[in-house]
């Protein structure tokens, strides 16, 4: 369910904090459209560090794998990335649904190593919000329906105090892929 106890502003605040602490950059450099790789020099380990900090901040699990890996896990190796390490037409079609049409570099034949550069501050924040919005209607322990927060970032059951159990990021991507496939029959 969509929740309104943790705001987008709070997510952005924690995300900026995680980026500043991991990459040691000035907060003023961090804009929604900032690419962590191209603009801030992030590397793969840095993403894991940022994810970990966000997980600690909100009590949830970020995706361990990118959309392309999930596509290949579901539809087979070669379905998203060809033997030359380049994106297939189907991968591009899927990513355009996820990231929007407004990403000019996203073309069939794009090198898979260039894809992580598409991850922006905004796209990470959206990923966090998607997870937070997977908040179940009822507490998994006592089925109470009221959630509360003391600090604006961790939700707990208003009755028994059980921490909120969100869907994890990888499961949400898989769920999204099934929906996209059902609607568009790409693969």
């Amino acid at each position: 369910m969509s929740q309104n106890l943790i705001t987008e502003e709070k997510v952005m605040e924690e995300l900026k904090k995680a980026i500043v602490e991991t990459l040691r950059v000035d907060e003023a450099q961090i804009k929604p459209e900032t690419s962590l790789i191209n603009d801030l020099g992030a590397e793969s380990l840095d993403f894991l560090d940022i994810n970990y900090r966000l997980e600690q901040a909100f009590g949830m699990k970020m995706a361990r794998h990118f959309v392309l890996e999930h596509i290949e896990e579901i539809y087979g190796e070669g379905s998203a990335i060809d033997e030359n390490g380049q994106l297939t037409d189907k991968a591009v079609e899927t990513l355009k649904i996820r990231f929007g049409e407004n990403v000019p570099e996203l073309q069939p034949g794009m090198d898979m190593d260039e894809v992580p550069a598409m991850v922006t501050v905004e796209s990470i924040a959206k990923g966090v919000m998607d997870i937070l919005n997977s908040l179940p209607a009822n507490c998994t322990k006592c089925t109470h329906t009221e959630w509360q927060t003391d600090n604006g970032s961790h939700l707990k059951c208003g009755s028994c105090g059980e921490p909120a159990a969100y869907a994890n990021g990888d499961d949400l991507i898989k769920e999204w892929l099934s929906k996209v496939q059902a609607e568009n029959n790409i693969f």
Partner: protein
Amino acid sequence: MLITGSSRGIGNAIARKCAEAGADIAINYRRAGGTSQAASEALCREIQAMGQKAIMVQADIAVKESVKKLFQDTAEKLGRLDCLVLNAARAPFKPIHKLFERELKQLVETNYMGNIFCIQESLSMLEESSGKIVFISSLGSRFYNPAYPLGSMKAAMESVVRDSAETLREKKISINGVCGGIVKTDSFKVLRQYWDNIDMLPEELFVEPDEMADVVLFLCGPESRGISGQTIVVDKGLSNSLYRPSGK
């Protein structure tokens, strides 16, 4: 002395430790323009401030031509090579049965072939200096570690250490390994995402990068002359005992 993958973590600690002991250091990192390069630059300045020579060489050990250039640059700028530390590693984090073919290739190309390319390219210089090679391994070579296919490559390389110790003996080059337990480096940040509650292990079981570096320094020095083809475990006793008293 050349340390592959030395911008961060264990490699970085080895570079500092050996520079403190008087070595000139070639720092290697894989990707230009990222945080590794920035970390290498900082390390380079730090070592130079100690009064030692330090150079940075960008090279991907998985690419043979890149490795050739790594050793050419080291030879040109440092003039000699007494020790090669094989520390660089790169691997996906997922169970082995889920690896795609390209991930398997990358795993082998960097962590097995890449290390062997480095050994091959180092031989002429190390033969001149009767030098030493130290491979950095991890307990994943011997025990299950979640989502850690790198462990199988570490196991293969420990075998290479044993093998090469004999075949390089006639060149008077020695080779050994150091096998780390749970070392608190950037890679630990990955491990804790796959190993729930790893932070709850007692602090005394975590290895500091500096503790790895001390053993590497020992293996690079003359005091280790009696050791050949061995991989020394540095794990604070983690792998030594099935018994853990409650709360430990």
